């Protein structure tokens, strides 16, 4: 077995929210039972709609949010036991690319400073060295050297995303977490960034966690996929398997909702998933998906299914997946 770069055990995050300043705070579960494992060089795609907890998971992995319970294991060691020095190294090894290339770059800093800042923080380069490193990074992501002294507003969305990627790569991370890296970009620019991510993965042997609501992007880039719904992973497995034959009704619905180019609607009228995504403040009983599930039975409303092995390295959290998808 190859060594795991990252593993989580029963990761859980609760938030306290109150409806008004006078009411008692209520606990909501943003993510629970998150078990993921990722070998070096692998790409994990996390798919799901808004409120499913995918960004919460990303923030916990980044160390930006402390998990309420559970463990993150990085290179075989528990992150919670890291010393300050190790903590700082860990922060360098895990970097993030953000969704919005407009708000994630400081408008008052020049591109060179933006890309160079992580190098200064982690004290890996200074002075002339720093400039040379930054120029090298800019070249790697397809930015021209003469753009070194420009400000973010002088760049298009695609180029800004390249700046964000260069900044993330500055400290030679092992793991790159990309939270919806393409959704703010035009189609022709999306393809350019996808290609850049593929190229960097090949050249640097990077491990990615790709968070997206766009399943076609996940299919294109990731080896493994986890589908999340309302804070839980509902299906997990090799990307090719999941796309070929989903084992959870929600995955099936997500796949059916992507408008295909064939023009044939892959869904009969009425096959569109009904209802809204429930609020995490009042999650449905039993299986969280049951109010919208076309296959629901009595058991689903009372008992919450666990993410269990369905054979062939696949997992799904559905009581009846064998019967539904046989």
């Amino acid at each position, binding site marked *: 077995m190859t060594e795991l770069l990252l593993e989580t055990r029963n990761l859980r995050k609760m938030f306290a929210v109150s409806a008004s300043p006078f009411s008692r705070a209520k606990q909501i579960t943003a993510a629970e039972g998150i078990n993921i494992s990722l070998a070096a060089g692998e790409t994990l795609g996390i798919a799901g709609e808004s409120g499913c907890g995918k960004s919460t998971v990303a923030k916990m992995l980044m160390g930006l949010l402390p998990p309420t319970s559970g463990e993150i294991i990085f290179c075989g060691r528990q992150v919670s036991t890291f010393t300050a020095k190790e903590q700082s190294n860990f922060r360098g090894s895990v970097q993030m690319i953000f969704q919005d290339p407009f708000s994630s770059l400081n408008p008052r800093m020049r591109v060179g400073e933006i890309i160079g800042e992580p190098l200064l923080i982690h004290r890996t380069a200074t002075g002339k060295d720093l400039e040379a490193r930054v120029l090298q990074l800019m070249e790697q992501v397809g930015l021209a050297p003469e753009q070194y002294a420009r400000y973010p507003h002088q760049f298009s969305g695609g180029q800004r995303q390249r700046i964000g990627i260069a900044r993330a790569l500055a400290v030679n991370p092992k793991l790159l977490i990309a939270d919806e890296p393409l959704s703010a970009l035009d189609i022709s620019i999306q*393809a350019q960034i996808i290609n850049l991510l593929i*190229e960097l993965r090949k050249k640097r042997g990077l491990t990615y966690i790709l968070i997206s609501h766009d399943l076609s992007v996940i299919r294109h880039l990731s080896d493994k996929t986890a589908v999340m719904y309302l804070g839980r992973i509902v299906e997990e497995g090799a990307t090719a398997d999941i796309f070929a034959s989903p084992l959870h009704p929600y995955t099936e619905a997500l796949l059916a909702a992507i408008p295909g*180019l064939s023009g044939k609607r892959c869904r009969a009228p009425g096959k569109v998933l009904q209802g809204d995504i429930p609020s995490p403040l009042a999650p449905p009983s039993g299986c969280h998906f049951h109010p919208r599930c076309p296959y629901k039975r009595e058991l689903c409303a009372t008992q919450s299914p666990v993410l269990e092995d369905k054979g062939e390295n696949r997992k799904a959290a559905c009581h009846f997946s064998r019967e539904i998808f046989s």
Partner: protein
Amino acid sequence: MTIPASCPNRAEKLLDVRRLSVSFPAADNREFHAVHQLSFHINNRETVAIVGESGCGKSVTAFSIMRLLQKPGRISDGEIFFNGEDLLLLAERDMRALRGAAISMVFQEPMTALNPVLKTGFQVTEAILQHQSISRKDAAAEAVDLLAQVGIPSPAERYHSYPHQLSGGMKQRAMIAMALASSPKLLIADEPTTALDVTIQAQILELIDDLKQKIGMSLLLITHNLGIVAERADRTIIMYAGSAVESAPTRQIIERPQHPYTRALLASLPQYGIPGEPLPVVGGTVTAADRTGSGCPFAGRCPFAIDICTHHPPQLIEITPGHAAACWRAPFP
């Protein structure tokens, strides 16, 4: 509200946009053409899609049809015929009677398009009162009815909800209820599902389609998503830098694209790629719709560009019946 029996299905042009140009003042007293000599039409009951990337002029086109173009933008040339009448010659008063009645619009951001301090139902009621002389009470009852028609559960209670109490999909449904309050002949939907989750997106598109059949209206769908277009539109117009570069029945555009830009757009979709392999991309970035240079606006990024492309702008001409492309190199096999 009762939806009137469908209007006769004539293959007549409901909307006919001819040589529309929209310009904005730019530096040095020059003009920036956001839309340049754009012509297209929509027949009765037809769904036409305008597809393009940001800055290609698709939204400016929609706002021009509604005559809601923000200053200092101005329509510098062209005609927009709606039901045989040139909208650009109408007095503002007459236009206001038409807007929201015969032509309605659904916007991209349901979060910002609704007034946050007014109850959702009240806003729908206002839309009804704008165009019908009925009592406020009747209008309110009609509003509840409309909310039910667009699939909002327990509409009588939702009537009293403020926009922030509704989910994104519900807000978009409320917006659609307002747009359909007066059974328009033409609905302009400007990226109606871009801000929504995929499963909700499918619901909203399905809803618009259903209502379109019921009311018998035409639909102008503005989007960047070729998948949506493939499923919903009868004809598609591809815009680049303010001009239509290709126009054809949707199936033909997807199966036999004739303009290098359309071909590049389709090829760069991950749906067509081999997982893990680089996608074919168009180099460079979208050029601004600035028409100061001569020649084809796509020439700089086009892998097929030849000498003439940089000197003379190609016209949108029919290659096969119904399929037009603005390219010197077309037809492509």
